[in-house]
Every structure is written in structure tokens, then in C-alpha cells.
């Protein structure tokens, strides 16, 4: 764990490690069993050393020890979370469990769709994880001429790889005429110096950075950038 990582992020990280550990120790048939055995105390008044939360605290500190030493301030913060605002750790744990299950269910349901048991199965859900080739030609759908849009760096970035190569029509799903036009527009943009040839346009990178959560963007003073 880096020293700049926020406490909640660290909690989530070590919790997932803990649950995996427990699962292996019990060696039950399903990973579900690991989550089932999380001690959850419903009575908030009984937060003594003998409560199930003690073991939770032990596991937490153990997990944190693997990364770095806790400062006294962090320790006191965690104690306060444990004793004062009791539900926080439990809520985080529930949220982490939900997040890890939601990763297994990537389908975004839309109102009015029909589902059968097979749509909830792991086989069907795994199909929603991989991107597929477009079924229709997007250029024909929108009725645009790619050659008129060579200055549109957003459009050009959609049709090049992160390494700056023009995507194949297997990936873009364009029909040959439109694929040639699109490739020509990209070459024209790069040739005129309007678009970088090695990666995405700086403006796109700026926007994608702005849309990321604050914690995911490394700050200028972080150790990684100082190397």
C-alpha cells in the first residue's frame, strides 16, 4: 500500500484479501461460503473485545500490516470507526461484497427486457463482458462522410488503437467503402499534423483524466512520478 492511498481504499483492498484467505482455509465448495461466514454484529451496544468485531479488527490490522506500518493517527481513526460509528466497516464490507458480485454480472439491464433463468447464468453473463464487433455500419447509420470529419479528433480516436494504428474493419464493423474513407481521414489527420500518430489526442486524454475519480489520478507529488 502506498502511503498516499486513502484508508477506505486500503480497507477494501485488504478485505478482499481476507475473504480469499478465509475461503481457502475452510475449503468449502463455493466462494459464497466465505462471504456467508463474515461475522456481522447487529447489536451496536455490545462492541466489546469479545464481540465478533474483534476478530474483524484483528483481520483488518493483519491485512494492513502486510502493506505498511499504521501511523498512530490512522490507528485511532480505525478504532473510532470500530467503536464510535460502528456500521461503517460493516457497510464497507457489504459494499465490497456487492461490488465483487456485480463484477460477475456485467449485463446492464434495460427496462422491458425479458429474462429467463438462462440469462442469469454465468455462461450468459460472461458473454456481456467481451466487446463484440458492431453489427451495423455506424457511418451508414449516422449518414456522415468520414473524409469531411478528419478534423474531428474524437471521431479519429475512436477508430485508432491506443498505439495509433488504424483499426481493422473486423473491429470497426464498417463496410469496405466506409473503412477506406475512414482510414483515409485518419491518415489525412495524422499527415496534416492535426492528430498524434502514436496515441490518442491530448484533448481526449485530458477529458478522460478529468472524468476519472480523484483517487485514481496520481498527483504530481506522488512517489511514482518522482522516480
Amino acid at each position: 500500500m502506498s502511503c498516499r492511498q486513502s484508508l477506505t481504499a486500503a480497507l477494501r483492498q485488504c478485505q478482499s484479501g481476507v475473504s480469499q484467505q478465509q475461503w481457502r482455509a475452510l475449503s468449502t465448495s463455493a466462494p459464497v461460503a466465505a462471504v456467508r461466514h463474515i461475522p456481522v454484529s447487529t447489536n451496536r451496544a455490545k462492541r466489546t473485545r469479545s464481540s465478533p468485531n474483534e476478530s474483524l479488527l484483528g483481520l483488518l490490522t493483519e491485512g494492513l500490516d502486510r502493506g505498511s506500518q499504521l501511523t498512530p493517527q490512522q490507528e485511532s481513526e480505525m478504532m473510532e470507526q470500530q467503536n464510535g460509528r460502528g456500521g461503517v466497516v460493516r457497510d464497507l464490507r457489504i459494499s465490497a461484497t456487492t461490488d465483487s458480485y456485480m463484477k460477475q454480472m456485467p449485463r446492464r439491464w434495460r427496462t422491458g427486457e425479458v429474462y429467463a433463468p438462462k440469462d442469469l447464468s454465468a455462461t450468459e453473463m460472461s458473454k456481456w463482458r467481451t466487446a463484440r464487433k458492431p453489427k451495423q455500419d455506424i457511418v451508414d447509420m449516422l449518414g456522415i462522410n468520414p473524409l469531411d470529419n478528419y478534423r474531428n479528433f474524437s471521431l479519429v480516436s475512436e477508430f485508432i488503437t491506443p498505439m495509433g494504428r488504424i483499426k481493422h474493419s473486423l473491429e470497426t464493423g464498417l463496410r469496405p467503402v466506409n473503412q477506406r474513407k475512414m482510414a483515409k481521414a485518419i491518415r489525412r489527420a495524422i499527415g496534416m499534423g492535426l492528430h498524434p500518430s502514436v496515441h490518442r489526442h491530448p484533448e481526449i486524454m485530458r477529458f478522460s483524466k478529468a472524468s476519472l475519480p480523484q483517487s485514481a489520478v496520481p498527483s504530481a507529488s506522488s512517489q511514482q512520478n518522482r522516480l
Partner: protein
Amino acid sequence: MATRSVSPGGALLRASRMFSLPNAIPPPPGDAAAGTNHTRSDTMTLSFPTHQVITTLNSSRKAGDWGLKRPLPLKSTTKSSNPMLRIKAIDTIEQITDFTSATDHGITLRKFQELGIPITARRPADGSKDSSPAALNLPQKSVFESDIDKTDIPPKQRVDTVDRRWKFTGPWLAGMTQGEFDKWLVKEVRPRRRAFRRFLKTKIAKDMHTAAMQSALDKGEQLQADPVDAESVTDDQLIDYLRMLRHNNQDLYDMVGRFLDLAPIRPPSLDTSSLQPGSKVDLREPSNPYAEHGPPVTHPSAGLSYLRTSMYMENHPIYGPQKDHAPVQARVLTPRRPAQARPAMLGVAGFVATTPLGDTVSNIRSTSLLDKVDPSIVGGGKVWMRVQKASVDSEGRMVVTLLDASLESKLVAQELLGEAACLGVQRAAEARAKPESATDIRKRYSAPTMSSAKGYGFGPSE
């Protein structure tokens, strides 16, 4: 009977599966995501079935007899407790019958009919938004009401019924992408330019006739009986009329819409300051219920329910008439994810629905089932919901509107399932616990003495 008139062999053929299986209807229209790299599954359950579901008797199923050309394999057709198949091809070049299980849509239909709700038409755009909480509580109209369920319309009445129809030969322009629109213009509209001019000429002729009649009436002269011939309208008159139309958006749309039989659109809100001086903007709100979201691709009931109303009261043997319809358990397909700004998605009778709008119990942030995945619950988390209405949207999807179930109705429903105990269970337990005397038992099991006159009440009372 129709089969009487044909030969026995012909009658047999007509009644056979081979001829009675209808052709597949087109699948649900793809959305804009079809042109992008978005994830999707090719094997997902479609939002409406495209093939007919066939079934067979259990005795025939054991022999693989589904009434098709050849018996179907027993291994894959006899295990299911619901014999439902969809036949993609009766015969293929590989000499096999192409079939898959159809329980997904078959059971969905059964589950939906168990809800006992009618399918309602969307309310016409009368200024109020369809999704606003105030509009939710307004009474809904069944799709089978005779004034909006028009299917068999003679061509002459097409224009009059434009506000009540759901089926149009032309497209719904607001639902087309630019590329589709351009292609449609080139392929369908441009070749009909001449026909449109002829159509306009008849309109001009009719107008001229009406004007002549009016002026004659005003002058007190005798009425002319002969109408103006459309052929006699000159090209100059037509060009003048076209110029007039171009400055009147509503009339132009009416004429084009009538000619191409376009589905009505809700007019856009216009900024009048940006218009050319002299152009007339007098846009009319269509009263067609499908103008705002587009006409449905299927019949607006989607064939799921033929009920006309849900305005009836349910009765309970102990508690009497119930205020609400019985609530149902809705599966939590996706819990609410505030970090990704995703709402909770529920599944009712196999249809995906959202949680109720507005200030309801299910919208309060809590640690309820709507906010988490609880792996300890066998079969997944479920919440009790009341189904308010259902309507079919323009893509053929069933939009089910849910409301929170009241505590009382939830308790009554749970008691019926044996999951909760309240008054009814207590009474039953009391009745069971009441000691029975020997005379009671003797009375219950004694055979009535029907053979004697006394049994009929005729004998002398002793």
C-alpha cells in the same frame, strides 16, 4: 368448416404442423448500440418471441412425437417439466429439425397472466409528461378500447383515424437515424414525387370547388354541382400552392404525412425568434397516444394479456375485500449502485422494471435488499412490489410500472405462502386446538338416516 370443402389429404396437410406453423416475425429492432463495440450477447432472450411456441402431450413426447416431420431426440426434449419448443426450421439441408427450448417466453407469458393486469396504452401527450408522478395516478386506457384499437381500416378512412391508429405504413421519423432517413428519402420518397404532385392537384381541385361553392352561397346564386377536375389544375396554380405550403409547417407536414402515411410526431418546441419573417408557425399537438414515443412494432398489447381493466377488488376469505391487488415478489436483478449512478433494476414476471418513481420507500437509501447483493439468500434477493400498470413501448418491450407494496397487503400475501403469521393463521390454529367432544365426532361421521321418513322430516317427532 373450411376443411370440409377440401380433400381428406388436403385437410390433413392443412392441419399439420408443417402448414400451421407461421413464419417468424422480424426480431426486435436494434438500437444505436448495434453500431458500436458495446457488449452484448447473441443468445440473450429477446424482448418478444419471434417464433411460435409448440407443445405436445406427455405420451407423445415420450415417443418424440411433436407432430413434425421426424421424431425429435428424446434426450433433449423429455427432461423439461414444461414441454415447449420453438421450431426454427422444420427441415434443413442437413436433414435435421432445428429446434430450441421456448420455455423462456412460454413461462414468461404464464407468469405475466398470473399478474392479472391489463395492458394500457400510453396516455396521449396532453402537455403533462408521461413519467411525472401526477400522470402516473391518472386512470389508464386499455389498448383494446375500440376507439384506439383500429386494425382493419379501409384506405379512405386512414386520414380520419390518424389520431387513433397504431399501425402506419410509413416510418416514425423521430425514431430514425440520419443515415436511415437519407436512405429512406432516396429510396422511398424521391420516386414518388410525381404522385405527390397529383395528390396536391386533387387537394387544390377540392379546395377550389369548396371556394366556388362558398362564394356562390354568399351571393345567393344557385349551387354549382360539378366538381373541379384535378387535371384542369395548372402547373402555375400548383407552384403557388407549393410556395404557400412551404411557409406553413403544419399544413406541409399534414399533406406529406397523409401522402406517405407517416406515424404522427410530437412537434418540437420551436424558438420563434430564429424563424424567417413571414413564416407561419402553428404547430398542432397530435392526440395519438403513440406520437411521443413512437408506434409499437407489435400490437400494443403484444398478445400478452387480453384483460380490459384491473378496476376490481380482490377478496380474502378472512379479511374481506382488499384495498390493493395482491403484491408480487420482484427479483432484485441489479442493486442500486450510487457510485456508478445506476438505479436498482427489478424483475417482475420475467420483465425488467425500475423501482417506483418519487418519494417512495424503495427510494430511501438504506441497507435493504435494493442496495446490496446478499449471497446468503438462496435464490437471490426479492422484494414485494405491487404492479400498477403495463404498457408496450415502441420497440416492443413491456414496461411494467411498479409501486411499493403496502405493509398490510405484503403481510397477507406472505401469510398465504406460509411465510408470516397473522390473524388468519391464529384463527386456524385456534380452530385446530379446540377440543372436540365425542358427540361432535360421532355427529361428523354418522351416516344420515335417509332411509326413514324421519330423515326427510316427515316422521312423528319423538
